[in-house]
């Protein structure tokens, strides 16, 4: 069977298509059909010739098989140091083979490759930090995912996720109306406590355009209120776009290059329409990577930059605290052992380690912050990055992957983990569910709000 009803090479472009795929619970039929899916070897080889650039070719070529990357990979460490988990092996035996064979690979090979691409690499890019040649396997896996996606070999949830971006320009079925409506609802809910709290929609030339993660809208909209409260307290001139508000990109995890472009362009269009001085995204790691670091290239922007200066939430928060726009009541600082999860996507990939530590200085009583070991650009992935968290098929592997983070957290002795990244937050939540080590975890927003000094003129009337 060349193309299945559920599993095929066609991207999903309609809401009906999403619903149809969703109706195949857990993708049971989808994965059955995948076993029969044909490979379009000509297309695969042609795509490689058109898209596999010199960097990747060179990396594959110059890898000395020295094995320095092995220990750098937490999945190698946590899976009994299985040689098959050495990053160099993982990429050579997949992408390397496809290129060597000029795309002439069979179904079994593609399914194995899919397993490697989504369950043996979280695209955390740690190996690239340790390779003497600077070879970054994570980047090559992102590329490989694109080839797999094109051929229809992609985990069920990510096919759906990429479809969501195509249909809704959001990672979940949240419409533009839902977004504005939910944000307004949240602000209304909190305006008694914070007089004057509003959500300015589509204001041109604001200092800040704020973008979010659709899951906040769908499942925990308090996060939207918290963002509004902090901007309000800091006296910021901010806005949200009614269109182009979603910063995340499951399309990036899925390897759906066309959807990556569509998604990020919707945010850039909002920037061009509203002309904000800066764009700030929510506490999400991959959203930042997708929209700020990689997005400009997907959208073909020559300078490699988004249309407006774009910073991560932790950068804004650090700035607001450092400049005194937001003031912390020292008596309310965290007075228990607390540790911090460094998100690969904006720490290792964008060097923002100082911002989070600046924030810590303001909100944690001196002596109570414990670094994980290793940390900053050397920190390990939470265990659920790159889409790993959401894939049912690889749940077992994902749970093993959480062990590294579990042990890192246990070693700090802290019971509270600050996780300013949706994906890390999820993984840490899941690791508590799975291994019950008695920890709590939080984004920064709710923690900071609890300890703010509220300026006189913003206090509610008693």
């Amino acid at each position, binding site marked *: 069977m060349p193309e299945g009803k559920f599993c095929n090479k066609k991207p999903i472009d309609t809401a009906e298509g999403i619903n149809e795929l969703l109706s195949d619970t857990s993708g049971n039929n989808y994965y059955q059909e995948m076993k029969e899916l044909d490979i379009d070897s000509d297309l695969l080889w042609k795509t490689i010739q058109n898209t596999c650039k010199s960097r990747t070719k060179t990396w594959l070529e110059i890898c000395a098989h020295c094995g320095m990357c092995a220990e750098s990979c937490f999945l190698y460490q946590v899976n009994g140091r299985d040689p098959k988990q050495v990053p160099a092996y993982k990429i050579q035996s997949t992408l390397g083979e496809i290129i060597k064979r000029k795309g002439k690979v069979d179904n079994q090979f593609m399914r194995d490759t899919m397993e490697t691409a989504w369950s043996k690499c979280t695209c955390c890019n740690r190996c690239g930090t340790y390779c003497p040649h600077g070879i970054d396997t994570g980047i090559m896996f992102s590329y490989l995912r694109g080839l797999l996606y094109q051929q229809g070999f992609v985990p069920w*949830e990510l096919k759906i996720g990429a479809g969501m971006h195509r249909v809704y320009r959001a990672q979940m079925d949240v419409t533009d109306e839902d977004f504005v409506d939910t944000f307004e609802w949240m602000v209304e809910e909190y305006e008694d406590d914070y007089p004057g709290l509003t959500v300015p929609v589509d204001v041109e030339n604001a200092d800040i355009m704020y973008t979010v993660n659709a899951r906040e809208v769908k499942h925990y909209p308090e996060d939207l209120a918290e963002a509004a409260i902090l901007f309000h307290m800091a006296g910021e001139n901010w806005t949200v776009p009614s269109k182009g508000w979603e910063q995340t990109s499951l399309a990036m995890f899925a390897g759906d290059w066309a959807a990556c472009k569509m998604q990020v362009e919707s945010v850039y269009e909002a920037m061009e329409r509203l002309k904000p001085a800066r764009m700030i995204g929510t506490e999400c790691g991959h959203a930042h990577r997708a929209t700020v670091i990689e997005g400009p290239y997907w959208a073909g922007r020559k300078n490699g930059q988004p249309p407006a200066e774009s910073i991560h939430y932790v950068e804004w928060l650090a700035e607001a605290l450092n400049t005194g726009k937001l003031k912390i009541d020292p008596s309310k600082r965290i007075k228990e052992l607390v540790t911090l999860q460094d998100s690969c996507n904006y720490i290792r990939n964008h060097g923002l380690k100082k911002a989070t530590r600046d924030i810590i200085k303001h909100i944690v009583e001196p002596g109570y912050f414990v670094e994980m070991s290793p940390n900053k650009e050397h920190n390990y992935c939470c265990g659920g990055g790159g889409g790993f968290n*959401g894939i*049912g098929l690889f749940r077992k592997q994902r749970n093993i992957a959480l062990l590294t983070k579990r042990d890192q957290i246990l070693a700090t002795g802290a019971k509270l983990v600050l996780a300013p990244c949706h994906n890390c937050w999820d993984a840490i939540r899941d690791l508590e*569910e799975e291994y019950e080590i008695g920890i709590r975890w939080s984004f920064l927003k709710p923690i900071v709000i609890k300890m703010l000094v509220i300026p006189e003129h913003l206090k509610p009337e008693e």
Partner: protein
Amino acid sequence: MFKKILFATSATQASDHAARVAFNIAKNYQSSLNIFHVMGVPTRGYSQVVIDVKTKEEVAVDEDYTAWVTEEVRTYYEKHLDGSFEHTIDVAVGFPAREILRQAKTIKPDLILIGGSTGDEDESVYKKNSAGSTLQKVAKAAKCPVLVVNRPAASFWGGLSNIVFGTDFSKTSDKAFDFAMKVAKALDCEVNVFHAIDITPLHTGKILTQDEIEQQIRESLRKIRARYEPRLKELKAYSMDVAEGIPYMEIVKYARDNMADLIIMAHHSRKVVSDDTRLGGNVEQVIVRAGCPVISINK
């Protein structure tokens, strides 16, 4: 009075006493009852998988599953759904407090009715992902009165005839009073206005002399008379009382001694204080301890 009631339920024993009150009100006052059940809490990141609140298993939610859970809820309440009142059943996925509020935003009920603490039974699933209990969050943000039935004792209840209105003289309390008056007039009830003076040293900062306490009691009574009596006169029966002690205890005792069948209070704690209702504000304490249903009014 209560044309449309949103009854949020775990559809387990933990909600049985709340259910008894919900069905009683619906029958006695011809309400239309929306039975609302949050069946699962999202897990696994962006995926469609939830943790089922009953089995605690990971489940992929699809149309069949939703239909099946709806049927389960219907079966659970089958003997109460005897056609004597209108009802609908909705199920949803999400974090309970937020989904209850979302449902309220959609159907705009006159009253939200929920059980109190669900105890250990489904704690692990409902409460895991958020600080603050479902009850606290709903009571804080709801735009309509929230009726809570926490203890089984609070559900053996014959109807509404005797309301205790607890006041702290705040603006929100005035709104709660408006509501108490509305209920009392519509259902021909007696209203007992009550204020408790907090004499705990933690609150007062010192130990009050008896003269000071009695002075405060007199002042509070004067305040109650000035603030509420003109309107209370519209009712057939009412009373006004003040007592000193730990406020929530005094209210619970007063309601018990007066055989109240409903307590109405304002909820205006600014923040969701803690994930443990035992540490919440006065109204939460009253909810936890009262021998009758409690209505909390927020706005």
